[in-house]
């Protein structure tokens, strides 16, 4: 979530996209620089554009609403209708220009950020994860479904589906050719004069109509529910069909008591009760495999602070996370800025080619670069050791200190093009008069940079540095693909290592421990990280206000 947010906020292209979109939608010429009258009359072109665009949006909306109606998602339908009405109202009325600009952005913010954050907030208070995947009713249905075991050594029957008086019957042919008929209410009755097909399977009885496959499929819910008792003894189980042409004797290994809300093992008599933790448990603590999702209150947050695998190495990991994030920002900014200054010189030839080359690392997906770098840094076969260092066997990723340095260097390689881009942009927007004036006053290049350019740059770039910090704080890809958090700490028996940052630690705790993934715990930990990052960012943003004073 944070990654995407920051990427969107940080990339100039994305910023440009959101700025122009409402412009076009409002049907106004894209010249926002010049101030216009607030209620300027629409041009013909503008009106046409408005009608076409709004028409497209509404067409899409009607389609979506129809889909929602058919799938009976009433809540989503109500919300979507309200949104569509609001959009039409905003763009059709005269005036209200700010709303026309803001509406798309706010809408996307709500859908892609607020909803997602609220949803993980909700998950953090549940035990959602493996084994707690759906509702209790689903879990009961699933347990009943999987508890049906075929009676050992029972014969395999051929089956046909017949109908009479609005009821369905199953016609069974056992391996000896004996034919019998019945359904859930009607006990099994032997039939002697059944019609058979070429394979000897009985398929017709006088007074009954034989269903063809299409009819069977059309009524499958009723047919799958037919359970014909084999005999008066329930231990013999019931005959059922799963495909309409074969039937087997099934017996439940567990029976559900609706009134008591318990499962009973038919063989051992063990009773499984709702243990209040989203599972059926026996008195000895054994639980049935399938559980369900429940609200657990603050439990996930309590676990986040008491879990021994988190508490032990937590301090070291937090320190390294801050070191990693701050060093990454500082290094990428320093390198990006110095390159931007270099390539900003008027008299440099081939600037464009250099600039394109500089941006290349930015164009690779981070996880791919991580894997490639992990190959380059392989101690024995890596390009770095073999080619550059003449066959040395330096454990770039296996020594704790070197691994930290390697991670920072790779992240520098990945991150400097972004800083280079934003610094180039910011440098080009600086008025050259200031530069000239300072030189006239006798300031040297270093003095000009330190006293004029840097303060002016920081006004526009400081917020990006903060977002870059937040991004690197949660830079999962680089760490996970390059070192996987390793090398492991020797003094803990958990899977935590020297380059683990908080987010990779969270990932390992929530998904790599125990017997499955724990979305509830993961969401709780993510919220805690969010609070840390938000606090740091809020303080920093407050500080950057001071920078803006240079302008006044």
């Amino acid at each position, binding site marked *: 979530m944070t990654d995407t947010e920051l990427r969107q906020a940080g990339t100039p292209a994305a910023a440009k996209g959101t700025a122009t979109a409402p412009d076009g939608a409002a049907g106004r010429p894209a010249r926002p620089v010049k101030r216009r009258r607030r209620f300027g009359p629409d041009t013909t072109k503008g009106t046409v554009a408005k009608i076409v665009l709004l028409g497209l949006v509404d067409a899409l909306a009607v389609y979506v609403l129809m*889909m929602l109606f058919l799938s009976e998602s009433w809540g989503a339908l109500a919300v979507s209708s309200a949104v569509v009405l609001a959009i039409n109202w905003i763009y059709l009325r005269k005036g209200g220009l700010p709303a026309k600009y803001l509406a798309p952005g706010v809408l996307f913010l709500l859908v892609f950020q607020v909803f997602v954050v609220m949803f993980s907030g909700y998950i953090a208070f549940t035990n959602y994860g493996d*084994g707690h*995947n*759906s509702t209790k009713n689903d879990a009961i249905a699933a347990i009943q479904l999987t508890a049906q075991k075929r009676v050992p050594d029972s014969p395999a029957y051929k089956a046909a589906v017949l*109908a009479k008086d609005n009821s369905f019957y199953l016609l069974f042919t056992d391996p000896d050719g004996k034919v019998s008929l019945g359904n859930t209410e009607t006990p099994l009755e032997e039939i002697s004069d059944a019609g058979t097909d070429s394979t000897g399977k009985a398929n017709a009885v006088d007074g009954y109509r034989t269903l063809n496959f299409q009819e069977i499929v059309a009524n499958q819910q009723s*047919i799958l529910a037919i359970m014909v008792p084999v005999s008066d003894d329930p231990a013999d189980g019931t005959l059922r069909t799963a*495909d309409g042409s074969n039937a087997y004797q099934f017996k439940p290994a567990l029976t559900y008591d609706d009134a008591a809300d318990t499962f009973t093992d038919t063989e051992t008599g063990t009773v499984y009760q709702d243990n209040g933790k989203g599972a059926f448990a026996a008195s000895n603590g054994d639980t049935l495999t*399938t559980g369900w999702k429940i609200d657990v209150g603050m439990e996930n947050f309590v676990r986040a602070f008491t879990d021994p695998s988190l508490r032990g190495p937590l301090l070291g990991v937090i320190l390294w996370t801050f070191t990693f994030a701050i060093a990454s920002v500082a290094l990428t900014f320093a390198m990006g800025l110095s390159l931007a200054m270099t390539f900003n010189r008027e008299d440099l030839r081939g600037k464009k080619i250099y600039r394109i080359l500089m941006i290349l690392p930015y164009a690779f997906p981070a996880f791919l670069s991580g894997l490639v770098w992990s190959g380059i840094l392989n101690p024995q076969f890596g390009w770095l050791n073999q080619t550059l260092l003449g066959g040395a066997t330096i454990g770039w990723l296996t020594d704790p200190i070197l691994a930290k340095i390697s991670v920072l260097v790779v992240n520098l390689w990945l991150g400097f093009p972004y800083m280079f881009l934003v610094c180039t942009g910011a440098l080009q927007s600086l008025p050259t008069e200031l530069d000239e004036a300072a030189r006239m006053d006798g300031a040297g290049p270093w003095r000009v940079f330190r006293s004029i350019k840097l303060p002016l740059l920081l006004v526009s770039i400081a917020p990006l540095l903060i977002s870059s910090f937040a991004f690197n704080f949660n830079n999962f890809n680089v760490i996970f693909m390059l070192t996987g958090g390793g090398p492991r700490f020797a003094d803990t028996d958990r899977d935590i290592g020297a380059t683990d940052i908080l987010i990779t630690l969270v990932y*390992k705790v929530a998904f790599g421990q125990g017997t499955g993934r724990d979305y509830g715990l993961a969401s709780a930990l993510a919220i805690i990280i969010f609070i840390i990052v938000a606090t740091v960012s809020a303080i920093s943003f407050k500080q950057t206000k001071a920078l803006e004073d240079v302008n006044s």
Partner: protein
Amino acid sequence: MKVQNTLTTGTSRRVFTAGAISVVAALALSACGGAAATAPATATAKPDLKASGASTITMWVDAERSPALKDITAKFKAETGIDVKLVVKDFAAVRDDFITQVPTGKGPDLIVGPHDWVGKFVQNGVIAPVELGDKTDSFQESSVKAMTFNGSVYGVPYAIENIALLRNTAIVPDAASTFDEVVANGKKAVADGKAKFPFLVGMDPKQGDPYHLYPLQASMGSQIFGVTADGGYDPKQLLIGDAAGVEFAKKLAAWGDAGEKIINSNITGDIAKEKFLAGESPYYLTGPWNVPDVQKKGIKFAVDALPTTGDKPAQPFIGVNGFFISAKSANALATNEFVTNYLTSEAAQDSMYKAGGRPPALKSSFEKAASDPVVAAFGKIGATGVPMPAIPEMSAVWADWGATELALIKGQGNPAADWAKMAASIKAKIAG
């Protein structure tokens, strides 16, 4: 922030499939209007949405396997009028999306995947058992056993895969039966200048590779889980930390970087393959997925039985691919018909073999495929193997197991102490 990403994509996909399903439902509704009218005797003649959705089966399949299913789905359509819609999905996303989408009722009716997903599916209540009936005997026993969880069969198997020892016959002409002989042959080849590496097996630089090393471990008598009375793995009997396991840990350290350098922690899967293709090693412990490249390169090779390190057989883990039915399929009957009576057919299994090259699970298809000596050799080794544990508790094993093995191979730590620590950690995780 992986979590949120998964959740958002999950949601949007769900919305999309919701839309897609409703369209299909709407079309089917209009199409079925006539059919329902001609069947007056049916008890529930009123065709509701669910019943009309029954004109299609939705199946998630990855791009590689999708073409292999075209013929059998066409046959099914011709004979029953039911369309099997093959939704091509990224294989990596299938398992998790299936788990999250089935409870919403918007998931597929059917998916393709490996058997070790079954435990997780049952734990999450998203999978329905399949009764193969008399057809059980027409499948290789190990494949049905792998699909069995808590005494029920959960999928129709179509392929079995396992590792074997590839030997470059130009370097070492004769097969060896024990790992010591393999090592000796390998070292001799290196000493003679015919090879650079005595033995190759790919190691993930972060997690090692316990899957590939398991036969060597099993041969020393070390197992992960004990078995219950009905033959399934028993999570309550964690055997990995026993004396045999510790012996294996010591051997790992002896074979590793600080010892004989037979297993090299710096050799990743890619490097191992590259070196074997370059003819730099006589031995390569790998699966059938790397064989086509070896053949393409023109390397003369043999598929050898897995070498023993102790007095027990060197059993590999076998992975069985198969078809699984959703617990909440709205079209369960037709899906069962398709799975148990069409996908079990020889034609379907042959076609899956042609597309994937993995030895078929159906005996008659396997016999045909076994005319290829490589398939026959891998199949013979697979018959001795044990299913990779599918119980949910297995996911608590991998991380510790791999990391500990990797550390030992690197020559770090103390084998006996670290192995015991690993077993304790796994035990603690399973206990939750």
